[in-house]
Every structure is written in structure tokens, then in C-alpha cells.
């Protein structure tokens, strides 16, 4: 069996790869590691399904320190960054963050990121780990006056996600986050050190992202873990959670040949300001469109499967997995823009291989089903 068996990372590879400051804590917790974006990251601890369901019901913590964190400073920071990303940075209020895209001239996604307005002259940009070098080159070559700093030298990131996350953070760290609205953030004192906390995440659950100073990261992580409501979750559960919430993953569901409009992300493109890629987005007809798939069985559509409508190939699956909440396969796919996909019955698979029967649903329908099923569990 197992043509596609997951490769266990060997020690030799491990030595060449980057580790986050929580690596030893993950090892102590019995994590299984995986190469992600050049980092040796925890794939899972006790198992993806258990970790996934725990996050939907209680509170999970994720080490996301591998993500690229930049700081941009200067009087021109807002206008210069605004020209690079799809968010209207100049009009982003202090204490607010926004999901956005860095686009190329063709309107394709160079990376997706979250921009934080720390002050009128300081912004934080959080992007993907695997694209960090590309981002630095892209951004720095487009800045005239603003100063770009790599915050990964001193800052880590812990995601605290799940319905009990606010209670846990209040009880364990003493941070009262009741005043934060969704995509709001503030600077809090955590373990005697400044920590940015935003009400945001990548799971579909209520949750927070903590930007800790490196010397405090392990202490924060271990303190949270001592609370009985909290368990660690790895990248495996992070992937199934984001897929159930219909959130695309850069490099898999979006790339430089995909526009945010094709990815169904129009609301994160602010056309009231000027940015690289805008002209192409306005001029270009989308060539493909994103759809969400629900398998009729436990069998899952998989990354790389073709999508067949009425027997004809009409697209490709970019993400697919078993949904622990729905106990069925789910996926994200792109189909040709002209295809009428609303409610369509499709199948996925390889040419000549077995086919997996799926229906096309909306992102909203998918997550509504997930929330309903969690309520029942």
C-alpha cells in the first residue's frame, strides 16, 4: 500500500530545517513533525480528528510562529504599503487589522496577508512562511521611504482558537478581550511583557492570534496548556479546520495565476484606492471560479483530482480532506468560469480512476453545516 504514504521527516532533513522556539515543547508533547514552509512544524499530537473536534468545542492552541511577520515604519508607510496590498491601508483605523492580497501586475496573488494598523506610522504585515523571501524582495523593491523590518527575529505567534478561547485567555493570562471586535487588536501585558492580540484566526471559530516576544513564548504556551480546557493542535487540524470554514490556503488554493476575484475574495479587494494589480482585475474577465465540494460519502476529493461535470472534465480540486465535523469528504475546487455550478452534482478523481460523487455548495452552506453538526455532537 501507500504510494502516497506521508514521509516521516528524517533526522538529517530535520537538521537543515528551521525550528520555532516551541519546537522542544512540541517534542515533549509527542508531536509528529512535518516540513512546512521550510520549518519543522507539528503535524499532529494525539491525532488530527481529535484535535480538530476539540477546537470546535473547547479551545486549541497552535504554534504559528513560522508565519512571516514584518513591520513597516515611517510617515509614508501607509501610502507605500497601500500601493502594494488590496487593503486601503491609509483608511485602516489604528487597532484594526485586515485580510488582504499582494498582487502582481496580472492581478495574480503573490501572497495573502493580514495588515495591522499599529499606529499611523507603523504597520505589521503577517504573511506565509514559504513565501517570506519572495515577499521581502517584492515589498522592499516597492518601498521608497518606509522602513521594512523582519519581526521574526524577536516575535513569535500563537493562535488560540475555539469557543472558550476568550475565557481561557482571561483566566490564564488575565487579558480582558471583551472590548475587541472581530479583526480588532490591541497591545496587552502578558507575563509582564507586551503582546499584540487580535480577534482573528484561521479556523472559523472565535479565536485570537497572539504575537509574543520570543523570551515569553514558551511560558505563554505552557501556561495555556496547563488549563484543562486547552489542548495543542497541529498543522493537520489547522488545515481541516480552515477547509471546513472555506478558507483558501496560499500556494494550494491560490497562486500567482489566480486572482482574488476568481478565489471568491472580492470583499477583500478595496477598489477605492490604487494598488498593484488593480488595472488587471478591472480589465480581466475571470477565467475560473472557486467552488466548494461536499462528498456524498466518507471518501474525500483530493488535491489534484479533476472535477467532472456530466462526465466532462471541468476543473481541478485544489484542497480536499475528510471533514471531522461532517464525517464526509469536503474540498475546494476551481471550475471554468462559464460552468453553471450552483448546486451541481459533480465527481472528482483521476482520468480512468474511481470517481467520488460530490455536490457543489457555497462557502456559507458548508460552514453552516459544520456549525450545525458541532451543535449536535
Amino acid at each position, binding site marked *: *500500500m*501507500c*504510494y*502516497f*504514504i*506521508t514521509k*516521516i521527516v528524517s533526522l538529517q532533513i530535520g537538521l537543515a530545517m528551521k525550528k520555532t522556539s516551541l519546537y522542544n515543547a512540541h517534542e515533549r508533547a509527542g508531536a509528529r513533525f512535518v516540513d512546512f514552509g521550510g520549518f519543522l512544524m507539528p503535524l*499532529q499530537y494525539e*491525532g*488530527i*480528528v*481529535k484535535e480538530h473536534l476539540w477546537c470546535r468545542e473547547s479551545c486549541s492552541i497552535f504554534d504559528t510562529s513560522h508565519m512571516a511577520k514584518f513591520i513597516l515604519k515611517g510617515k509614508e508607510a501607509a501610502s507605500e504599503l497601500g500601493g502594494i496590498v488590496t487593503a486601503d491601508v491609509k483608511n485602516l483605523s489604528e487597532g484594526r487589522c485586515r485580510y488582504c492580497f499582494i498582487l502582481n501586475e496580472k492581478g495574480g496573488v503573490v501572497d495573502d496577508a493580514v495588515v495591522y494598523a499599529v499606529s499611523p506610522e507603523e504597520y505589521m504585515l503577517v504573511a506565509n512562511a514559504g513565501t517570506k523571501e519572495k515577499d521581502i524582495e517584492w515589498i522592499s523593491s516597492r518601498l521608497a521611504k518606509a522602513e521594512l523590518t523582519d519581526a521574526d527575529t524577536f516575535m513569535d505567534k500563537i493562535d488560540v482558537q475555539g469557543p472558550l478561547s476568550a475565557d481561557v485567555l482571561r483566566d490564564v493570562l488575565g487579558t480582558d478581550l471583551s472590548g475587541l471586535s472581530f479583526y480588532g487588536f490591541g497591545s496587552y501585558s502578558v507575563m509582564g511583557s507586551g503582546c499584540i492580540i487580535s480577534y482573528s484566526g484561521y479556523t472559523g471559530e472565535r479565536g485570537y492570534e497572539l504575537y509574543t516576544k520570543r523570551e515569553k513564548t514558551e511560558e505563554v504556551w505552557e501556561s495555556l496548556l496547563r488549563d484543562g480546557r486547552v489542548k495543542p493542535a497541529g498543522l*493537520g487540524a489547522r*488545515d*481541516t479546520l480552515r477547509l471546513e470554514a472555506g478558507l483558501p490556503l496560499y500556494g494550494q488554493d491560490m497562486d500567482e495565476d489566480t486572482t482574488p476575484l476568481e478565489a471568491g475574495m472580492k470583499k477583500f479587494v478595496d477598489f477605492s484606492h490604487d494598488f498593484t494589480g488593480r488595472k488587471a482585475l478591472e480589465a480581466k474577465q475571470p477565467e475560473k471560479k472557486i467552488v466548494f465540494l461536499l462528498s456524498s*460519502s*466518507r*471518501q*474525500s476529493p*483530493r488535491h489534484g483530482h479533476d472535477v467532472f461535470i456530466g462526465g466532462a472534465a471541468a476543473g481541478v480540486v485544489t484542497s480536499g*480532506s*475528510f471533514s*471531522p465535523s461532517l464525517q464526509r*469528504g469536503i474540498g475546494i475546487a476551481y471550475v471554468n468560469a462559464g460552468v453553471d455550478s450552483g448546486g451541481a452534482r459533480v465527481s472528482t478523481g483521476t482520468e480512468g480512476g*474511481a470517481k467520488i460523487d460530490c455536490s457543489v455548495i457555497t462557502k456559507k452552506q458548508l460552514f453552516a453545516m459544520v456549525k450545525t453538526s458541532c451543535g449536535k455532537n
Partner: protein
Amino acid sequence: MEVRKGLLYSKEHEWVKIEGAKATVGITEYAVHTLGDITFAELSKPGTDVAQFERLGTVESVKTASDIFSPLSGKISSVNGKLAESPETLNSSPYGDGWLVKLDIEDKEEEKKNLMTAEQYEEYVKTL
């Protein structure tokens, strides 16, 4: 990780237990550990003739789908029906309740040469 004595093993991590003209096939603890939570199993139907190392079915975990190959040739006499409802049985009992299929086999001395003993498989896994 347990490698059960008395079974024969394939490089693709299937095991086979031979009892006269009957053989039981499953996947090893190494395989289920590597796959993680198993969420789906689909196997060829009883009555199907399979050749050695021919595809016998598919096992899916949360993250991935893997083909299962028959370690010996034979006719499938029964399929573990429990796996359709409870594929996680493969994780909890890969050498017991998580068996995949039973085969009617004939003399397999030649085919057995293509398989490993428990000791050989244990050494093989160490090299992966």
C-alpha cells in the same frame, strides 16, 4: 511499533497470515501510524480474483488516500464489513479486528519469496 511474528510482509506495508488454503490480509501498525486517523476504506468485492501486488482497494486518512495491494494472489472470500462503518478500527487494531480481506489461495511458495518475514520487515522499516 508492533511487527507481529508469524506473518509475512510486503514493502508496501501489507501483512498476510497464511493458514492452509486461506490467507488474511491487513496493513501494518507502521502503515496506520504513518497514515494517522483512517477515515475510509473501500475494498474489492468477494469473488474477485487478484494477482500478487494487484490493487485490492483504497484506504484514506484525513490527509491522504493510499492504494492497498494484495500480498498474494487468490480469490477474495470475504471483506471486513466493519470497516465501512468504523474505519478507525484499522488504527486501533491493525493486526486484529482491522483486517481487510480473506483470500482463498493455492500453493504460494514462489510468491512468498517476494515477501518479508517479521524480522526482515522490522529491519526494512528501520531504513525508511
